[in-house]
């Protein structure tokens, strides 16, 4: 059977990527604007740390949604946005970690080390961050050649671990105040996105 392939040639338009860049930078611009106009509330440091964490998680969901969307809507062109979104996940994770280190810890290395040691939710966040850094560092074409496609793909499956660690980080942070509504929301989205992969993999194997 030949599947009809819907035309989505606009996704290949040269302006689509710059537009995506703009969209992905918009949350940061909004936060910078909020900081300069002092409209982030009574505790702007906390608001920044949390908003940057929220956006890291949101973009992670978006990055993980690209493959399911590509397959379900039969739009191969979507694949060309996956690395860009993934790198923005890391970009927001870097800002999130920086905001924590500067605003919460006053850049005191000893205090940060102490915090990582004594607070499990921070440790889990650091682990997720390190994995993201590894993925970002090997995100360019040449790295695929160096590592070999198989090993590279293996390594980049670590993004599923990042998803798990991120939601655990968020859950642990919120459980201090018994506040799980958003954790359940993001957790469900991630579960659907990862669950779909499992289901898809199983379907393909059955077909072989």
């Amino acid at each position: 059977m030949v599947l009809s392939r819907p035309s989505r040639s606009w996704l290949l338009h040269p302006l689509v990527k710059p537009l995506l860049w703009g969209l992905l930078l918009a949350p940061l611009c909004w936060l910078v604007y909020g900081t300069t106009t002092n409209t982030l509330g009574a505790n702007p440091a906390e608001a920044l740390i949390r908003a940057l964490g929220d956006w890291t998680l949101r973009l992670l969901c978006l990055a993980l949604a690209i493959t399911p969307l590509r397959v379900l809507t039969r739009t191969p062109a979507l694949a060309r946005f996956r690395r860009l979104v993934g790198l923005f996940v890391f970009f927001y994770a870097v800002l999130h970690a920086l905001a924590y280190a500067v605003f919460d810890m006053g850049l005191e290395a000893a205090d940060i080390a102490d915090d990582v040691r004594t607070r499990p939710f921070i440790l889990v966040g650091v682990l997720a961050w390190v994995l993201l850094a590894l993925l970002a560092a090997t995100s360019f074409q040449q790295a695929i050649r160096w590592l070999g496609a198989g090993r590279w793909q293996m390594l980049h499956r670590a993004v599923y671990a990042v998803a798990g660690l991120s939601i655990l980080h968020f859950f642990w942070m919120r459980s201090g105040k018994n506040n799980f509504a958003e954790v359940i929301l993001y957790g469900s989205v991630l579960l659907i996105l990862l669950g779909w992969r499992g289901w898809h993999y199983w379907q393909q194997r059955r077909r072989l």
Partner: protein
Amino acid sequence: LAAPPSVVPGATTPEQPTAYQDASSYNNFYEFGTDKADPARHAHTLKTRPWTVMVEGLVQKPGRYGIEELLKLGALEERIYRLRCVEGWSMVIPWVGYSLATLLHRVQPLGSAKYVEFVTLADKATMPMVNSRILDWPYTEGLRLDEAMHPLTLLAFGMYGEVLPNQNGAPVRLVVPWKYGFKSAKSIVTIRLTEQVPATAWNKAARHEYGFYSNVNPEVPHPRWSQATERRIGEGGLFAKKRKTLLFNGYEAQVGQLYTGMDLKKWY
């Protein structure tokens, strides 16, 4: 609701009060939502008149006090207290009220009374989160009787010379300045004297994280975060260094003797 400054020792810190805008827009009042901005957004639905407070349990003279009556029961005074939240931020707030002891003396606690329980309003019609199971409603708090009788323990009706905004616990709340903020119950409807330790909302929710005493103590970390430092809201901008948290929130001279011989790590 202007009132003369209090003469109770320790009742007036010379520190710069937090901006009213911050103190009335950054609140924990879970009945109205879990986000800090939610109470200011949603608490307008709270009806603070008429309001009655039941004082009951192990007392000679239990009573039902209308809010107007309660306001006249003691001489209102202004107290500028530090407020330290268990989440690691702090404010300085000028409260208006009188010592809880004034009310307790009037109802005459029995010899068997050892604790005071505070029950707060849980009205599904006006408080959206009371329909959730995020805490076991109504929100309850408690103090040992000698803590409740301490002159610094304040029954507050106002702040910044005005009637309490709804989101800050109108029309009547407790303020216990040497304990984490959640001990200071808001929108109180019942004050009950008991012989047994009363169950408290956060202790029920997470026994190992929130003890009955919950005295401010930089040496006893919360299992999820350190309590060694705090961020003073509105102080010094984004890059301001955090402050060191003080034992009993800096009220050790006044309240330290309440805990002589107690292991504060065990009785957290």
